């Protein structure tokens, strides 16, 4: 399969320029952050806790009003967009969702149709069919009638992803989508996200795993104390030095060759005890 992604001539879908956000008393949480995201591109946002990753996502989603700077989606400044119009452009997959009420997976997914409904209308059978189709697409149609809160963490994450797909937005925003998943579910989710990007969607996700950026991202953005340290292709930006500086802990970036693709080299990162070796003596 040819790689349709990482084409520098894809149109820009998201352009953030000089974004500054701060709480008056506590100083800046984001300072002069600029980044662009092209169609069919996956961008990983990396940084220690409190670096401003979630703040950046919340600004993009219209949940926080930035102090300065602009966020343009397909050329439109989001300041001039109503919540409903923004929701047609950007869909959000939260880290987790809790509701005390027994909504089924299908009912949760149908909520994604909200920005496409006329005001005062409720989802029709056609809307429910769309939602079921998206659940099916992610391989979880059998869960449609199950109560959302009784599903496993991985299944819930898939339902939330399906809801974002139901929203039919060109940009997907994922906040640490794999934080609560076991390794198998993490790999499955990332592969699906990658396939969604292949179809032309732009994906902006935060993660605590730099290895995910090597495997799946077209761009990596390193954020620390509200400012961008570096951004670009993961192979160039994520080095032992930059990751060590970013997280304040010694991290080694290594190259490995893939057994099923002789000649292809992939990078990943490792850490070990400061004083010697445990696993590999």
């Amino acid at each position, binding site marked *: 399969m040819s790689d349709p992604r990482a084409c520098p001539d894809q149109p820009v879908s998201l352009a953030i320029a000089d974004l500054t956000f701060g709480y008056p008393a506590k100083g800046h949480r984001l300072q002069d952050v600029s980044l662009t995201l092209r169609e069919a591109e996956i961008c990983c946002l990396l940084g220690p806790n409190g670096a401003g990753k979630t703040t950046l996502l919340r600004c993009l989603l219209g949940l926080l009003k930035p102090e300065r700077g602009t966020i343009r989606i397909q050329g439109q400044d989001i300041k001039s967009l109503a919540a409903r119009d923004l929701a047609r452009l950007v869909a959000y997959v*939260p880290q987790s969702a809790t509701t005390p009420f027994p909504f089924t997976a299908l009912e949760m997914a149908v909520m994604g149709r909200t920005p496409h409904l006329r005001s*005062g209308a*409720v989802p029709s059978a056609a809307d429910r069919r769309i939602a079921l189709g998206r659940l*099916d*697409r992610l391989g979880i149609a059998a869960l449609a009638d199950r109560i959302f809160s009784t599903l496993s963490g991985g299944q819930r994450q898939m339902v939330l992803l399906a809801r974002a797909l139901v929203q039919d937005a060109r940009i997907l925003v994922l906040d640490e989508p794999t934080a609560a998943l076991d390794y198998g579910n993490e790999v499955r989710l990332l592969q699906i996200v990658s396939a969604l990007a292949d179809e032309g969607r732009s994906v902006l996700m935060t993660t605590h795993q730099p290895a995910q950026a090597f495997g799946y991202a077209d761009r990596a953005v390193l954020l620390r104390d509200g400012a961008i340290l570096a951004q670009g292709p993961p192979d160039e930006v994520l080095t032992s030095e930059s990751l060590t500086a970013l997280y304040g802990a010694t991290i080694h970036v290594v190259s490995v060759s893939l057994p099923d693709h002789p000649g292809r080299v992939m990078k990943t990162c490792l850490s070990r005890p400061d004083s010697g070796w445990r696993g590999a003596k």
Partner: protein
Amino acid sequence: MPICVRCSRNERFRTEHEARRARAVDPLTRRVFGEHAPVLVLSAILLLLGLLSLGIGRYMIDPRTVFHVLIQHLMDLPSVGSPTEQAIVLNIRPPRIFAAIVVGAALSASGAAYQTMFRNPLVSPEILGVAAGAGFGASIGILLGVGVGLLEILSFGCGLLAALLALAIGRLVGNGSLSILVLGGIVIGAMFGALIAATQYFANPETTLPEITFWLFGSLGRATFASLQVPALIVALCLAALYAVRWPLTVLAAGDDEARTMGINLGLTWSVVIAASTLMTATVVSLAGIIGWVGLVVPHLARFIVGPSFTRLLPASILIGAIYLLAVDDVARSASPLDLPLGILTALVGAPFFILLLMKLGRRWS
């Protein structure tokens, strides 16, 4: 067309997912067809119970006579039944039955709306201190010896005042946070509770004190068609407002931030729900006194039958609330020579019922 993103290259998964899809379409069609069944059944029960209730009370009239009197009256035929029976079926009981339906529907609908909006199954319509405020207004009215009309206006006004104070606390202290709003409501409710106690302390133990006490117990006995017109209109308008936001409110149940990223106008939805629920609650409390537990328990029962989506929860809550209060008022009218206070009965029935519900559903809320 690939069935799942990973499946396009894996025949084994493909067939498995096709089978899953076939299984999954079935519940969808079932839901589409069965959607209106609960509403129809509940409406039929309400209609039947409403007619039966015309015959229920201290003076029992059998359903056949009730039916004949009604038919005769509607068809303008020569009258049957004794004049007493005629007066009861045509004039005395209908306002009270109508009042039970209005009050039950209003309390249950606002309870359902608040529970959904606050994402808290333990919230009731009195959450913003409305009931205590309205009770205080009525107590003052009784203490001053004003007429029925003015008493209801005082009660309604103080109920609204309590909610506005709670809202002001939520806005000034909590910067619009919903949990601070609830705390504000609890504080204001407690304050008006103390003020009610103060009016009772200063009331005349021979005359006004019993009257205040009975008012606070809740009763539908004061209802007349004339006094019901304005409250019924207010309740109808508020129910219509809740109906208009039934979908945004459903999405809000998934979380405020998520609802906003799905295009919901949070401020507008909150305002409509708070205004409609507060107006309705103040209206029915001023009409019937403090009738607890209905707004807390009925939405749970409705959710048990039709699910948590407010689009179905609203009509089901309205109907079940009306049926429930009508049934309880039938008991209040017929169980003893004295009218039993409605608020006491709803609490006596509601509390054990709520414990049953907790045993059935409680694990989900942990």
